[in-house]
């Protein structure tokens, strides 16, 4: 069991952190949520790990957005890590103006569109996206089409200094 979990961790941790980072824009938070996802896998080992892990991670993001009180406490120890300099959450992103614009554009999408897009970026096929987000497989193409179009439009609006509601 532990060996399996270690293998899962090695296999999916970077992809989970990347997806969560794209979703939250905060590396520490993304790592923390990824760790919490795997911690849940310790107590309830999943049969089909990839959709399970990403679905749990996305649920945690949603919960975490509502539960901000305990966040600071949970991260307290990890922030003391020596090999991990304590930088501001968006420091890396702020350095890159374009990346910040992309994130802002991504934030303007609705939850489902954004998650479908992020899962696709992690190599999920339509069946996996449908299973993870609870969609019909036939609706995934439309969801992705809308998500991509809105992302590009929002990004272009960001470039022009406008704000586009999704």
């Amino acid at each position: 069991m532990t060996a399996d979990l270690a293998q899962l961790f090695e296999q999916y941790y970077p992809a989970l952190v990347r997806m969560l980072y794209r979703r939250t824009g905060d590396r520490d938070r993304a790592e923390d949520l990824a760790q919490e996802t795997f911690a849940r896998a310790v107590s309830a080992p999943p049969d089909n790990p990839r959709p399970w892990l990403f679905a749990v991670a996305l649920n945690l993001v949603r919960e975490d957005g509502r539960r901000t009180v305990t966040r600071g406490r949970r991260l307290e120890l990890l922030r003391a890590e020596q090999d991990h300099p304590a930088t501001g959450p968006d420091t890396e992103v702020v350095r890159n103006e374009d990346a910040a614009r992309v994130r802002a554009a991504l934030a303007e999408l609705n939850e489902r569109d954004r998650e479908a897009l992020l899962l696709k970026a992690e190599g999920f096929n339509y069946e996996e996206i449908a299973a993870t987000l609870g969609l019909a497989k036939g609706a995934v193409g439309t969801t992705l089409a809308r998500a991509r179009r809105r992302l590009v439009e929002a990004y272009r609006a960001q470039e022009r200094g406008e704000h586009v509601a999704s």
Partner: protein
Amino acid sequence: MSHLDEGTLHALLDGELELTEVKEIQAHLGTCSACGSRLRQVKEFYAEAERLVGAIEVPGLAAASAGPGGRAPVPLAPAGRAERAAPPPVPAGPPILLLPDNPTWADQSRRVVAPLKWVAVLAVAVGAGFLVSEARRGSEAARLATTPVAESAPAPVLSTEEATPSTDSAALSGGARGDLALADSEPAAAQREVRPVTPAPAPAPPVAAAKAKPPDEVVDSANDANDRVVELADRKGADAPPTKDVRAEAARALEELDQERRVARAAAATAALDSVRRQDQALRRERAALAPAAAPAPVAAPPQPTLEQRAETYIRIGLDEAARQLGRPVHVIEGMSPLFMGLAQGRTSPGADTTRPVVRVVYQDAQGRLILLDQQRIRPGQSTAAPASPEPHWTMGEILLHLHGEIGPDVLRTLRSRVR
């Protein structure tokens, strides 16, 4: 067929449609200019959205982030407008077909001219083959007479073969030559309505590599692509004029020429190799004379273990998870800041229940040595007897604690009194 919606076009570009659906769409796109124009627009959004999402990379995680199905970072364009005017192509991967723009009169005329060019190439190849075979069979005088022609023939023949793989075998051979045939040659242009993209061989471009599927999927898609190439070749064969015997003769002639050329190259290479070998041996003898006791080659230093490996933790956890594991807040050493907390296998902590993980709080002293404070909730019936070890091992309420690490037992005993 009604007009194609955006979702279907995205599913098409994502490689999610069945072959029959693709064929229907392809047929529709051939006749509907509105859908053709929509497809061009969708391709633009698709490519740009992929690039934008790929542009957000976790700082410091980019190199290690190419997981299964993952995607390498795509650099952002410095000037968005200029890039948008010519968006990057949709990365190679799941999409299996490149659908055509609506045919213009130029395309159609090219389709008419293309077979004529092909026939002309065949005529050149056959002529060259005939001359070569004549040169071989003929007398000494005849050979002398045809030699200049035979020597000059291979260049155009080989170049035309490479540029336009007119035979089925060339189209099926894969590799650079096959790709070229499918991508650029005029016969391929004649088949543009069904133009499979074969998986790129050897070093793939960064974007293609980043979108690479897991190996089994790659094999499947490669098989699919190959099937389609076979199908394409079959169709081509069915449409081709009955010149098989002529082409076979030309192919034989070319093969003979190729063989001769290879023999000559091999002989030249062998001769060159001998001289290089002699020079190499002389150089070695010289070096041996100058430096009889050569220093052994430096051995590459083994990679340093990570903190997690040194602490034998398989996953990092936060305070919440630690408290959940223990059923109470985690114990810490007063006055010390932990590096991190993690779960370790029970067998790595003497005295702990080996069937369950232990919560391990990891500290580091000023010399960089690790100090590990293990904690495990005691289950009913679990033995709490301390193992035969000089390291501190005790219980606090329902928690079994064990302090160990890379420092001596005396220091560990001192630290025990500070555990809260």
